[in-house]
């Protein structure tokens, strides 16, 4: 029996882009290992934190939407806890009918979003070069 979950985690802002990507990939690998079916990925990017966390003022937000058995969560959170590059994480379960409908909606929205960001990304690179 697989439930619908959403996990948000914040990566340290002091890392380089490659290191951030490596951390995100690592979490993805853990998800694959614990028999989770990744539905969508939402990158919120570098944001200002509302309050300092481990003396960091900013953080890199990533959200994963996935279906997984309940036992997978303990293993995933254990991995996130031991990862020094992750400063905060939260898992939300979508259980009742209304929440599940919203879950599907958010997956659709998250799948649309990367296209928009990919359009923006080259523009940013160009401006950086200029």
């Amino acid at each position, binding site marked *: 029996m697989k439930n619908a979950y959403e996990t948000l985690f*914040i990566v340290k802002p002091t890392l380089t882009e490659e290191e951030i990507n490596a951390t995100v990939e690592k979490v993805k690998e853990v998800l694959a290992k614990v028999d989770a079916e990744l539905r969508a990925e939402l990158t919120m990017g570098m944001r*200002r934190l*509302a309050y300092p966390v481990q003396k960091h003022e900013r953080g890199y937000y990533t959200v994963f939407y996935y279906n997984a058995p309940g036992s997978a969560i303990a293993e995933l959170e254990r991995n996130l806890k031991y990862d020094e590059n992750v400063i905060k994480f939260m898992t*939300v379960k979508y259980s009742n009918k209304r929440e599940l409908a919203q879950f599907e909606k958010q997956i659709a929205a998250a799948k649309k979003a990367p296209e928009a960001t990919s359009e923006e990304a080259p523009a940013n690179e160009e401006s950086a070069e200029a």
Partner: protein
Amino acid sequence: MAERRKFKKRYCRYCEQKVEFIDYKDLDAIRFSLSERYKIMPRRLTGNCKKHQDMVTEAIKRARQVALVPYIVDRKRVIENPFELIK
């Protein structure tokens, strides 16, 4: 009692927009129910219905956990329009 009721009748803003679920990442939806000091506004002031107040409360508490919304704002921890500060 009748004399004291001077403010106009309020309606639930979320009901008008037919919101089914409030996501904690959607700060625009949450914002309406927060005071200037980022406290959760009571129902008697916002006019939210019970159903949507419960939803928004849960969303705000989740947003606080992941540092999207501050727990407190005081003289030590002043935050200037944090909603706009994305970078």
